């Protein structure tokens, strides 16, 4: 593949560019596989990656690294990199030091009694190599998954114009009641309430009656009552009308005693009849 590699994700590559440097400059005894140049150009993902490369290229078991040999090869690569004046990430030098230390510990003669117990000096390095290798492999596996836009595509069909509709919010009755409770508490209405019986249906009926008379016309008083609602319904309407009259939202007109009464929306004019009743007592 000759696909361009996303440039934004390449910044950390330490050996990224080697141009026109002849291979003959490399030390003679450096282990160079036939496709080494290609690998050089590909660059490594860090010292662990380089070490893994050295191990894999020689088909060595990661659990049995000939440390002196690998160390020398590693150092030779580092030298080449330096010769080629490539900027070397600090991690490579840290690894070089670590390898040198392991190598020297391997060379120390061990007291015979301790042979079995003492941890192999290579253990930590091997652990890190194996751990890195797992994720290196996992990255390749993920890269091989069928990917949207490369291997598979979301299928879509034309569905005409998209008319975006905004839906109304859902509210539960409990939410509404809790809101009311809060606002009443804030207004300290609980303290000032009179205990009187005013079914909410009267309030609702007040709205209904008011809405009815909004046309500004006179309405026959008796027409506001619906006998089919039964006695309770008639009482509710009556209470609503009384309350509206008291609040001067309704105007009651009667031409003469016992003549039909008419109602219309209040107009701020003096109430035409003497509405000299006690406050409605709903209880």
């Amino acid at each position, binding site marked *: 593949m000759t696909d361009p590699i996303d440039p934004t994700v390449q910044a950390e590559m330490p050996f990224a560019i080697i141009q026109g440097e002849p291979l003959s400059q490399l030390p003679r005894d450096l282990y160079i596989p036939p496709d080494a140049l290609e690998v050089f150009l590909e660059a490594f993902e860090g010292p662990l990656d380089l070490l893994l490369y050295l191990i894999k290229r020689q088909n060595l078991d990661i659990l049995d690294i000939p440390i002196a040999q690998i160390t020398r090869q590693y150092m030779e690569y580092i030298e080449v990199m330096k010769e080629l004046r490539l900027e070397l990430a600090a991690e490579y030098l840290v690894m070089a030091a670590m390898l040198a230390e392991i190598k020297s510990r391997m060379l120390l003669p061990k007291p015979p009694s301790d042979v079995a117990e003492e941890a192999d000096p290579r253990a930590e390095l091997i652990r890190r190599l194996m751990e890195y290798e797992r994720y290196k492999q996992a990255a390749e596996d993920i890269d091989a998954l069928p990917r949207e836009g490369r291997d598979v595509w979301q299928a879509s069909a034309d569905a005409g114009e*998209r008319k975006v509709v*905004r839906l109304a919010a859902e509210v*539960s009755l409990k939410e509404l009641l*809790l809101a009311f409770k809060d606002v009443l508490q804030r207004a300290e209405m609980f303290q000032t309430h009179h205990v009187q019986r005013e079914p909410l249906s009267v*309030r609702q009926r*007040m709205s209904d009656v*008011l809405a009815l008379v909004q046309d500004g016309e006179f309405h026959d008083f008796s027409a506001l009552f619906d006998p089919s609602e039964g006695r309770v319904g008639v009482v509710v309407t009556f209470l609503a009308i009384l309350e509206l009259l008291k609040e001067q939202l309704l105007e009651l007109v009667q031409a003469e005693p016992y003549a039909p009464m008419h109602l219309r929306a209040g107009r701020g004019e003096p109430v035409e009849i003497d509405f000299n009743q006690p406050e409605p007592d709903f209880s």
Partner: protein
Amino acid sequence: MNQKKVKDIVEAALLAAGRPLTLDQLSVLFSEDERPDPQQLRKALDQLAKDYADRAIELKEVGSGFRIQVRAVLAMWVQRLWEERPTRYSRALLETMALIAYRQPITRAEIEDVRGVSISTSIMKTLHDREWIRIVGHRDVPGRPAMYGTTKQFLDYFGIKSLDELPTLAELRDIDAITPELPFGDDVPPAPAAVEMMEEPATLRHGEEESDADEGKTPSPTRH
């Protein structure tokens, strides 16, 4: 390349592109040695159209080429894809709504009095648009402010027959205790109740089965 493969590639391309493709655009998808002639491409398109005869989609030739489109008969369902999720109502809106329900007819100024803050016009507009409130009259004071009341739609939405079914102020103080008896708590309001205005609230109040729900409903202080 066999005809089935040509058809598959044509279908794949049309669905992956999500836009109309011309015969030329389809043709260049094939490398030179396998490229079908225009006749073969036409045939593949014909076969696709036939494959779709009993499906949700159809092949259509439009100005800019061939496209696969969803059948118009399914538009009413597909349209729901573009419905936007509603935002939740604000506390201010709910309080305003509650005050209108309990204290109707009530003017905006009166609501503001109780709440102690002014009400934004958008709240009143939302409640109107939702058809939960209506103007039921005008208060006879300077400016003749509108008075608001609830609507039938309001009752339907909250699944109550009349405002009587709302708890009284006294009960509100102990709202959590009465919750189980009323259709609260449901995030989605219950199905609208039957259209029965004021049908004998008294019997409900005294009926035995309903006694739990309706007890304490009688003292209903709402005025000052």
